[in-house]
């Protein structure tokens, strides 16, 4: 018998277990999956919970519920991987052997990495994160009781998972305070280490316009050095200061420390892999999928889904000694909440910037791309159902792995590129 060991029972790990349980010969293979707890959190819901859209119970389910009966689930924290022995050690010392290993341990926000951020004087009192369940819940209560002042929405450093989530938070906060008839008591700033509102230039322009339309102040190129918990001020590396009353930050995101303990990661504990096949650059029987890898694509559930589809086919070739023929193109798509019951959709890959147009989803679509509409918002809400009922279990969902140019406005892209030349011509600065 050979063992496929999956580390992490989140979005990617669960999909891998489901897909490969169907494909692998059960007389020859066992599948084992390890996670430190039994609570699968629907992470996209953490963005909406602070605004009272979801109740906490709607966002948590038992991991076992999504893992096939024939797959062994071990609930334990993982200490380290020892690739030379083909073994993984659990906290407590138990060793598990593997023939093939999939690392899907994700990424987590690390407030401890910025001086002053997790100081008890401010942490979960005036400084909050919404990337964790506890943070999102605490923020819900803080927002409900807040009387107004300076709200700062902030990204510490890229890359983060779901890179649009903080922007969406700013849009939703604007809508939330407007609805509660207290928008004039609140100033909202959006503070980012990037040069603009988003990482991709075309998007950055469209989304930047949406910030100014909502009277949200954009503070680009701000690299946080520390937070002064006494005075409630953020201080940047080049000594700029931004005061706040309520800071909603996305702390530095890092892969799990288990990767550092195993000496297998880069400076942020991400596992270096081939960006088209997810095979480790160092070990021929180790893959990293989802947020845990270092591929230059968005860290998002949609990316993990497209990636796992390609991986599952490749894996069957890999274990029978053939070259892997599937190639991942970096495809990502995501619904962006823009507040007041509206949303927009963006779709892109390694090579192509997000383009406006219509995104052709058979059955449900088409969805307007990079443009606000109520349909996109409904798409985001429907996604929770799709996530729990289809996606995790590895069932078919009506979106292709490879990005398609159908419905996208190429002409717009060309025009934007023309503009880009003037705007960004760096050598002339």
């Amino acid at each position, binding site marked *: 018998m050979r063992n496929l060991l999956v580390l992490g029972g989140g979005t990617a790990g669960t999909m891998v277990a489901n897909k490969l349980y169907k494909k692998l010969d059960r007389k020859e293979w066992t599948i084992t999956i390890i996670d430190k707890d039994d609570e699968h959190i629907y992470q996209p819901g953490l963005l909406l919970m602070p605004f009272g859209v979801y109740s906490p119970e709607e966002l948590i389910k038992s991991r076992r519920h999504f893992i096939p009966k024939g797959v062994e689930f071990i609930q334990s924290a993982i200490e380290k991987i020892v690739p030379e022995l083909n073994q993984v050690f659990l906290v407590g010392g138990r060793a598990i052997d593997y023939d093939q290993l999939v690392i899907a341990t994700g990424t987590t926000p690390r407030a401890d990495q910025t001086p002053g951020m997790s100081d008890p004087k401010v942490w979960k009192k005036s400084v909050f994160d919404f990337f964790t369940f506890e943070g999102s819940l605490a923020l819900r209560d803080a927002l409900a009781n807040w009387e107004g002042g300076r709200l700062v929405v902030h990204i510490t450093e*890229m890359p983060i998972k779901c890179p649009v989530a903080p922007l969406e938070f700013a849009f939703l906060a604007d809508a939330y305070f407007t609805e509660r008839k207290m928008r004039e008591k609140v100033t909202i700033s959006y503070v980012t280490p990037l040069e603009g509102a988003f990482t991709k230039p075309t998007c950055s322009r469209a989304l930047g316009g949406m910030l100014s339309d909502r009277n949200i102040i954009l503070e680009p190129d701000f690299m946080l050095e520390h937070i002064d918990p006494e005075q409630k001020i953020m201080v940047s590396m080049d000594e700029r200061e931004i005061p706040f009353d309520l800071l909603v930050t996305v702390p530095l995101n890092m892969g799990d420390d288990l990767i550092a303990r195993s000496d297998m990661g880069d400076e942020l504990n991400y596992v270096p892999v081939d960006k088209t096949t997810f095979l480790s650059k160092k070990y021929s029987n180790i893959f990293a999928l989802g947020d845990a890898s270092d591929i230059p694509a968005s860290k998002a559930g949609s990316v993990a889904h497209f990636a796992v589809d390609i991986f599952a086919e490749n894996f069957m070739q890999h274990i029978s000694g053939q070259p892997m023929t599937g190639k991942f193109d970096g495809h990502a798509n995501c619904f962006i909440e823009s507040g007041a019951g509206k949303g927009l959709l963006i779709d892109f890959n390694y090579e192509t910037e997000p383009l406006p147009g219509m995104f052709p989803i058979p059955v449900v679509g088409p969805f307007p791309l990079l443009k606000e509409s109520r349909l996109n918002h409904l798409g985001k809400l429907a996604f929770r159902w799709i996530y729990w009922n289809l996606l995790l279990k590895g069932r078919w969902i009506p979106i292709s792995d490879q990005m398609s140019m159908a419905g996208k406005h190429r002409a717009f892209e060309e025009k934007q590129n023309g503009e880009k030349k003037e705007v960004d011509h760096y050598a*002339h600065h």
Partner: protein
Amino acid sequence: MPTIEIAGKDIDVNEEGFLTKYDQWDEAIAKVLAEQIGVEMTDEHWKIVNFLRSDFKSAGETATSRRVQVVGGFPIKEQFVLFPKKPAKKMAYIAGLPKPKGCV
């Protein structure tokens, strides 16, 4: 892709002016690139630029500010002093490397 002349050589650059061929770079070119963006090269600047060059060779990608801190040992704060406002972009520009990814 445009070609421009720097320090007497024809150099390939992208539309933002970043060098596109690793081997076309030399120190004389770096000095000109630095001048264009208002940076005067000192020993400290060269140490960082040289780190970026050698790291790119082994890692295949331009180091981010964090990597320059963690792997190279140059604190981000110091990078901001030496290459004000946009250190990651400026360091890459002078080192003749692509803009660092990290932002997706």
